[in-house]
């Protein structure tokens, strides 16, 4: 398993999302991500962190949001992980069929079927849609612990 270049965790407050964006952009730049793509990294990471903060505030405000930034092998990868397990329903749905980490949520913007129907705010869904539109490669995995958004972009083949 590759060690992340930079890892951070922050209390789930909207004010810290900007910090996460700034750090992610700085590490992306240092990892050799093209300048033209940095805006996309900044926005996608911000969206993923905003979504995680919202989920934590609703389900587990005392738990930090985690972000891992890794620049290796010509790719710059960001993983934003929340531990806001959606109570009952969604976890059960993720269980038998797609519990394996890495299971993709096709369409991204759709909340888990048995989650809280229609409770998702428009921006939250829009956020995932924006991420899918921006990142070069996106995998959204819902595990028992919460949601993990893995996104990556090409970078100069450093290291």
């Amino acid at each position: 398993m590759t060690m992340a270049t930079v890892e951070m965790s922050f209390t789930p407050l909207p004010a810290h999302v900007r910090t996460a964006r700034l750090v992610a952009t700085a590490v992306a730049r240092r990892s050799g991500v093209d300048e033209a793509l940095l805006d996309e990294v900044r926005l996608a990471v911000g969206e993923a962190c905003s979504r995680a903060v919202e989920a934590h505030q609703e389900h587990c405000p005392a738990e930090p949001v985690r972000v891992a930034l890794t620049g290796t092998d010509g790719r710059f990868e960001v993983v934003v992980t929340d531990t806001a397990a959606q109570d009952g329903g969604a976890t059960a749905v993720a269980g038998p069929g797609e519990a394996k980490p890495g299971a993709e949520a096709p369409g991204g913007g759709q909340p888990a079927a048995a989650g809280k129907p229609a409770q998702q705010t428009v921006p939250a869904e829009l956020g995932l849609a924006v991420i899918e539109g921006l990142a070069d490669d996106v995998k959204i995995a819902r595990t028992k612990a919460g949601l993990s958004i893995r996104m990556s972009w090409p970078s100069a083949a450093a290291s």
Partner: protein
Amino acid sequence: MDLKLDHHTKDGIEVVDVEGEIDVYTAPRLRELLIELVNVGHYQLVVNMEKVEFLDSTGLGVLVGGLKRVRAHDGSLDLVCTQERILKIFRITGLTKVFGIHDSVDEAIAARKAEK
């Protein structure tokens, strides 16, 4: 940088000048301003985003919310934006079809007046 908000009336249309970053932290302030303007009877709005450095989906949600509010009064909400990095977000989300997006405040006002 933080978010700076200002507004003034021009040719009977309320122009909202936004400067800085609109994200999950700052967007509530823009939402409050738009609600306040609608509450005092301004239903023709132009949001000038020329000095916006960052916009995320929370900001988009606030703009869509503003549009919904003014439309309830047969009003309008037009945007001024020429920055490619911001326009791209509207394109990705298909919102270019929802908002009138103009190159300048004058152009936005002229377009609005021409529709009347």
